[in-house]
């Protein structure tokens, strides 16, 4: 069966209003006001193309993969493996076998902590993270440290929310066995100098995991250019379904690492005397995976490619600049996270009101922001604040929505001023 490809592969000119038309959820009123969705760092909305891919799969192709001789199983398997190929190209990985399907960034990091950790990390060894990590890049290492007697070292951050690279350089030593640092911060927006982080570690023979949860939705990522050994991201932040994510790992490492979970699909043969594990990537994919999720993620990647990262970056940069300018002008408002190299996230506090009260008042205006510690309690401690309100943008947001945000903050001032 061949499906004719549309002849026109050319990218459309970017028009935010037409792009918004791709996201049915955005066409709704919340508390009687048009929804202004500014919680994209928590999860992004899904374009119709992704929703259609899920519906199509469940309506026409649903079957279990890899073990079936029948037509549906072959179709499902083909789409599943096709999606792996899309992810490989998307990250510019060297090989399909370096792409492991997991539930999300959290599971990807846990997989490395558990598998790489138990194989390569011993008492007295050190693992380096930073002070701006998401809890999902702290707790798995704390668990590993507890189990092995290894030690967690933490790269400090400046008051603009940037890594202290000198301190990082000094921290790398003969005991360092792994560096695990986020690429882009979810609570501060900081874009970390990933290539430099990797280079400094590699100079000492130390492998690096990058948490890419907040980077892939906003910028093209080339794992071979970055040079990282592992890269993790979540589909749901990339306009794809929830509970599907990627662990990229260099083959040299993945080959040496023991399985993370045991079960079906991850074995070649099982007897009570001896079980032989499957090859990559299946060694790390035990049990029936999130097949629909994988196919949906593939559709999300196609969609992002059709919009184009140049367009995404340009739109988000404009939103960040405009939003930063507008919000900085508000009396009593402080932006938390003012790194030079920043993604479109504006975290802020107000002298007049607690973030939680800000969030409730904004919600009444139809504006969805997140308030709290954003799973980065150490960042909050650093800035001596309990929480922030955070507006995080996607390419489908508009300047008009920034204006609505600003007007809604005026309402906060009306109540609290």
């Amino acid at each position: 069966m061949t499906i004719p490809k549309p002849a026109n592969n050319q990218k459309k000119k970017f028009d935010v209003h037409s792009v918004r038309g791709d996201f049915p959820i955005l066409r709704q009123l919340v508390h009687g006001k048009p929804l202004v969705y500014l919680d994209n760092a928590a999860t992004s909305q899904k374009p119709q193309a992704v929703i259609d891919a899920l519906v199509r799969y469940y309506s026409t192709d649903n079957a279990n993969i890899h073990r079936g001789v029948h037509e549906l199983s072959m179709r499902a398997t083909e789409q599943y493996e096709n999606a792996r190929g899309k992810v490989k190209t998307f990250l510019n990985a060297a090989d399909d076998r370096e792409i492991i399907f997991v539930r999300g960034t959290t599971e990807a990091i846990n997989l490395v902590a558990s598998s790489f950790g138990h194989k390569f990390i011993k008492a007295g060894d050190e693992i380096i993270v930073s002070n701006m990590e998401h809890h999902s890049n702290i707790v798995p290492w704390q668990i590993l440290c507890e189990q092995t007697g290894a030690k967690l070292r933490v790269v400090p951050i400046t008051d603009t929310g940037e890594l202290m690279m000198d301190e990082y350089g000094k921290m790398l030593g003969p005991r360092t066995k792994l560096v695990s640092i986020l690429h882009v911060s979810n609570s501060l927006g900081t874009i970390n100098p990933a290539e430099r982080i990797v280079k400094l570690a590699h100079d000492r023979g130390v492998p690096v995991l990058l948490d890419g949860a907040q980077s892939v939705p906003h910028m093209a990522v080339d794992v071979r250019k970055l040079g990282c050994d592992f890269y993790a991201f979540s589909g749901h932040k990339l306009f794809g379904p929830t509970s599907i994510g990627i662990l990229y790992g260099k083959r040299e490492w993945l080959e040496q690492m023991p399985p993370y979970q045991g079960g079906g699909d991850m074995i070649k043969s099982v007897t009570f005397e001896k079980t032989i594990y499957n090859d990559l990537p299946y060694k790390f994919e035990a049990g029936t995976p999130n097949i629909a999720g994988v196919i949906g993620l593939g559709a999300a990647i196609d969609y992002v490619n059709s919009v184009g990262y140049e367009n995404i970056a340009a739109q988000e940069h404009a939103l960040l600049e405009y939003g930063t300018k507008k919000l900085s002008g508000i009396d009593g408002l402080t932006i938390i996270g003012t790194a030079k190299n920043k993604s479109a996230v504006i975290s802020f506090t107000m002298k007049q009101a607690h973030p939680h009260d800000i969030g409730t008042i904004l919600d009444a205006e139809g504006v969805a922001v997140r308030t709290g510690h954003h799973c980065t309690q150490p960042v909050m401690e650093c800035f001596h604040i309990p929480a922030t309100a955070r507006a995080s943008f996607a390419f489908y947001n508009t300047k008009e929505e920034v204006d609505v945000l600003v007007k809604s903050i005026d309402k906060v001032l009306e109540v609290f001023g």
Partner: protein
Amino acid sequence: MSEIRELYQEVVMDHTRHPRNFHKLEGANKTADGYNPFCGDRVSIFLKLKGDRVEDVGFQGAGCAISTSSASMLTEAVKGKTTAEIQALYDVVHQMLTRAPGTEFDDEKLGDLEILSGVSEFPTRVKCAGLSWHTLMAALKGDKEAIFTE
């Protein structure tokens, strides 16, 4: 904005800006700490019990307007009450905060505390208003461990 105005009434804002009994209580014989990890609100309640009666009360902490004003009003409401009276009051407050929208509650006993009835329209804020009350009950029971609500 009307529900917002209902939530952040003058009295609520007044308690937020000028919390009552906002201090550590010297000679307190029952205390407890409460923490809401979801929004970072913290509250400590200090009680001086004489026999079965709350002779004095204080609180400390940092939080949103709803949690601060609720704690402040709580201190005014429990001063001079017996533990049985406080339990009865807690039950009504709990009913008020967690009731289905539009349903009745026993407002006779509440006095000023009724100001917080609008919170039930904001399910994400119920924990804010409830934090100090849970902490109060923990203090009365003598629970030393910090309590977490989320």
